[in-house]
């Protein structure tokens, strides 16, 4: 879909019929169809019938629900994996998952209100008994499954509301008195079910070939390549009147390999590719080239000297900066953290205040499908509460403007901005989508390196660091823990004042957010994207982060966790049978 359509939808007024017709017209013009209306969807019809019926029937109960939503996620996934040239798995799996939100009480206080000092696993019981949802589209079978799930959820919701009411009485007054659920206008949207075709046999062969080169090197102890091809269709309905159907294919390849140094340290490297288009995955030549590059880097890493704990100036490549921003910044702008008093709430009171250097701006935009030619995994048109996705300006010239919001209001922010997300089985919470860091002033990478060397000399350090690639990271946001972050680099160089670069191994990047931000000095012009998955309270969701390379006046590194296991005792076995 072209950006033009999204822009158009923003300008059209909230008039259901007009919106729907304009969209449908554009859609069918694009498809070359002249249909009068959107083809009927028996699943959506069954969902709607049961939602209406259950909601009406439950009105007769002593405490009727005020809100009900159904989300069915159909997923057809083919996963193929290989290791060292041999096929290790090939599975084709179809699932259909129901996520149901039911609220009793009212918008100000309902059963989803967080319990303070509660058993953190208390809500897990909910996830244990889930009925199997029919994969086929027989409306009766679907309706019975939805009915069972609704009754079950209703009973649990009543119980939890009692707990909430007691908890509210017993604990001190909350700092943030905003309600539990926001009012949003209903919306309708429909994408046709995406087609799905994947040549399993051909890809099994491709993956075997792709990992075979790793077997030639005894230093490489672990290796895997995985291709996941899936098509996912989500149908969402709620008692406000929203009806959303989204459907998209998604393709990913992940290649990993680990080498082991003589001192036992394990050195991993990863390469990922993703696309929303079946022809968007790399061809054999590209895969081969990248694999050879990985092997070369691994062999160098194995021989590289151990880095020492260090503080000093450094350059983070675009990829490294992107992960850096995701961990130290992205998680701290998620709406619900500002309200949860167990959270450190680093930025809670900083709206309209300076949080970053004034040449940096940050926005979160789930409506972006690509940036500079790289597809973005955090794309979605509507979030998991049926709220339309939109671009959110988080930081404007260094000033904090907005948080990422779901339908859970926080002080000062009454509405969702389309960032309510979840993995199937979890409760929705505000999450990141595509985080983009922009710099108003940019220099070339060569110039940035020059500036780094100036910093090294000024600080009287023997060398600075350059973080080229990372595998991921984690951060703590609660009050009870130091709010540190840890970003795990895989390729790091020492940069000497004479300009020489030396590959080193064995360190993780650490720090605390507020200090780290205050040390950003400059940015380059090489914006790079990091596509990954992020795990937090509402499970794992695909996200991306994009950033230019950054020069930081002071970064800290600590020793990496090291395996204590010796290398294998016997040499690797021979490739062919000896006689």
């Amino acid at each position, binding site marked *: 879909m072209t950006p033009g359509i999204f822009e158009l939808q923003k300008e059209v007024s909230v008039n259901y019929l007009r919106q729907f017709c304009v969209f449908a017209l554009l859609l069918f013009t694009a498809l070359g169809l002249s249909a009068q209306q959107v083809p009927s969807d028996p699943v959506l019809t069954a969902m709607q*019938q*049961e939602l209406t*019926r*259950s909601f009406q*029937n*439950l009105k*007769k*109960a002593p405490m009727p629900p005020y809100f009900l939503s159904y989300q069915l996620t159909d997923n057809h996934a083919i996963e193929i994996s*290989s*290791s*060292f*040239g*041999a*096929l*290790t*798995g*090939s*599975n*084709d*799996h*179809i699932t*259909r998952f129901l996520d149901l939100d039911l609220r009793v009480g009212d918008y100000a206080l309902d059963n989803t209100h967080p319990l303070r000092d509660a058993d953190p696993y208390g809500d897990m*019981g909910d996830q*244990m008994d889930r*009925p*199997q*949802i*029919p*994969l*086929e*589209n*027989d409306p*009766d*079978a*679907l*309706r*019975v*499954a939805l*009915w*069972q799930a*609704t*009754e079950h959820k*209703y*009973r649990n919701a009543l119980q939890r509301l009692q707990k909430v009411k007691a908890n509210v009485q017993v604990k001190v007054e909350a700092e943030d008195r905003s309600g539990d659920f926001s009012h949003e206008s209903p919306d309708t949207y429909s994408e046709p079910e995406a087609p799905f075709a994947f040549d399993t046999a051909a890809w099994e062969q491709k993956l*075997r070939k792709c990992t075979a080169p790793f*077997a030639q090197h005894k230093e490489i*102890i672990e290796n895997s390549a995985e291709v996941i091809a899936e098509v996912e269709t989500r149908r969402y309905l709620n008692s406000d009147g929203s009806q959303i159907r989204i459907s998209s294919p998604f393709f990913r390849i992940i290649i990993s390999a680990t080498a082991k140094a003589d001192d036992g340290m394990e050195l991993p490297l990863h390469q990922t590719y993703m696309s929303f288009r079946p022809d968007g995955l790399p061809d054999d030549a590209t895969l081969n080239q990248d694999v050879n590059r990985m092997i070369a880097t691994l062999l160098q890493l194995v021989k590289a000297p151990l880095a020492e704990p260090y503080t000093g100036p450094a350059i983070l490549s675009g990829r490294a900066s992107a992960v850096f921003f995701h961990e130290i910044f992205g998680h701290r702008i998620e709406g619900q953290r500002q309200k949860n008093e167990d959270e450190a709430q680093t930025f809670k009171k900083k709206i309209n205040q300076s949080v970053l250097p004034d040449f940096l701006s940050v926005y979160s935009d789930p409506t972006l499908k690509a940036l500079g030619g790289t597809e973005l995994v955090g794309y979605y048109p509507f979030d998991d509460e049926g709220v339309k996705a939109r671009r959110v300006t988080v930081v404007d010239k260094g000033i904090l403007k907005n948080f990422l919001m779901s339908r859970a209001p926080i002080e000062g922010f009454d509405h969702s901005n389309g960032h309510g997300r979840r993995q199937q089985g979890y409760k929705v919470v505000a999450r990141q989508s595509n985080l983009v860091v922009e710099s108003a002033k940019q220099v070339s990478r060569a110039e940035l390196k020059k500036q780094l060397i100036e910093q090294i000399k000024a600080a009287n350090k023997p060398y600075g660091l350059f973080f080229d690639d990372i595998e991921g990271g984690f951060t703590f946001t609660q009050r009870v823990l130091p709010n540190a972050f840890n970003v795990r680099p895989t390729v790091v160089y020492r940069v000497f004042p004479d300009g020489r670069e030396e590959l080193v191994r064995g360190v993780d990047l650490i720090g605390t957010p507020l200090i780290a931000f205050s040390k950003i000095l400059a940015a380059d012009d090489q914006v790079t994207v990091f596509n990954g998955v992020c795990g937090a309270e509402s499970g794992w969701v695909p996200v991306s982060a994009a950033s230019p390379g950054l020069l930081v006046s002071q970064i800290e590194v600590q020793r990496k966790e090291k395996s204590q*296991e*010796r290398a*294998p*005792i*016997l040499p*690797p*076995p*021979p*490739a*062919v*049978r*000896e006689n």
Partner: protein
Amino acid sequence: MLSMISNKMTRKLPIRAQLFFLALGVLLTGRSHAQDDVAIRAMKDELSRSISQIQLQKMEKPYFLAYRMDDMNRTTVAATLGSVTEEQPARVRLIGVEIRVGDYALDNSNYMSLRNFGGGMFSSIRQAPLDDNYQQIRRDFWLATDAQYKKALEDLSAKRAALEARKQTDNTPDFSKETPNTESESPEKTQASLQQLKALARAISAVFRSTPDIYSSSVDIEYLNSYTRYANSEGSTFTRAQPVFKLQINAQTQTPDGVPIADSIQLFGHTMADLPAQDVLISRTRAMADRMLKLRSASSLDRYNGPVLFEGDAAPEVFAQQFATGLMAVRTPLSDDPRFELFFNQMMSQLGGTSFVDKIGGRVLPDFLSVSDNPLEASYKGVTLLGASRVDDDAVKTREIRLVEHGVLKTLLATRVPVRTVPHSTGSRHGWGPTPSNLFVVSEKSSTSDDLRKELLRRVKDRGLDYGIVVRHVGGGSAASFMKMASRMARQGAQGGTSLAEVYKLYPDGHEELVQGVEIAELTPAAFKDIVAVGDTPVVFTDEFIPRVGALFSLGISATSDVPVVSCVVPSLLFEEMSLVKSQGPFPNPPISPSPLAKQ
């Protein structure tokens, strides 16, 4: 592959064909290596390199090494109300390594340290490539052996230290010596047709479309075609095919007061062909549904103490769930903390009932009953027995074991992990520990089912009771009750026990009344001494049988077979005395809305 001459084939073929294959067999044994496929060759080659060469510095070399490989081809299909809810074919290859350092008397096994708990215990199995790639298979065994060897050295040294710190009275060896053995079998050719399984699941589950008062129902079908390869350093090797086909029909509902009502039909075979035809399955499902609907308005009872007759399926069910679990030998592992051993015994009896390990030579059943375990029987009166196999998971040759003779316990089923009273393997290792294979309860005297009922009513009259109890279906199952127990432990304050699925009051005038919401108050293996009469028509009941959890500490997790399946052949059983009570709540409220299928 023609090179695999399996005993299965020779039994079924006419003489001429048998001679032909025999001749071919003679031809091929000259080049015995041709019989081994790539995977087995890779295993054997890596095994012989490892056992002869692996040694860390000056430490001990292993004295025993075993490699296992399981190819599991599993197709799972589920449906409800005529609509498929799950369809998943899956192929996985798992390998396991069992390595021992020390010697048969004292080695690294039967030892529990905190390091072993959780991840440590399961590190001996891993996934291997599906391709028969010689080098990759050897690589995976190479790395697994290396990791397990290092762990074994650490465990043995910690165990020796623990032994020095206390006085050891039990000198039972850690590992028994058994005769090496070789068996081979070709893979099972029958594939599962996903379309066929889906069609069957839809057809059976559609029965419940006309019974909206049965709130939830499902049909689950699983076909697991697994092929195992094994080799050890004593010279044993085997290849074995174990196809298992399972069909389960489940239904749950509640009385208007919320009392849960549940029932199920569970059938096992080697392939779909072993099961009854589709229309028979449909009519059995209908009968179950009708009975459940009647149960919704049936009466209950508060308490009953008196004679109880387990008829038909209920007899082998109750025998498998409550008595057979005691027939396994289980060993208490040594620990660095002696208090753990106390706790271990308590935990084991909670999780799996008591074991008869100290009752050998003692009376466990009435003197007219005997029990034997026989893996060499393939069927009983035309019904397939699922426990049949020539060789167990340690490659020990299987044979009939007389467990109970005239009511007296003679021995227990054991693996190569000896216990005080059972020094040798009975060829009973399935999965991580000992389990039965096909259990037979045989009686010197028996009665017709009419006579059994008469006897029940005679005793009822003697006791001055108004009625007797007949149980036709217990429900639950050993696998299910293990899961229920586990989930009960996970969620405190769960709802009541499991009600008996099909139970009747039998009145002196001969009429029967269905009873709902009743469970057995307490049933221990000792209660089986109270059997006073048995029927004349034993029935086959097959179910999953989880080996005793304790066996995990005896290097149990190096075998990767799926949950073992056991068949019990048991006649109807009349117990002199048993306590039944009403199931206690709290029960969930019945649904507020009627089912969408209900007529308005």
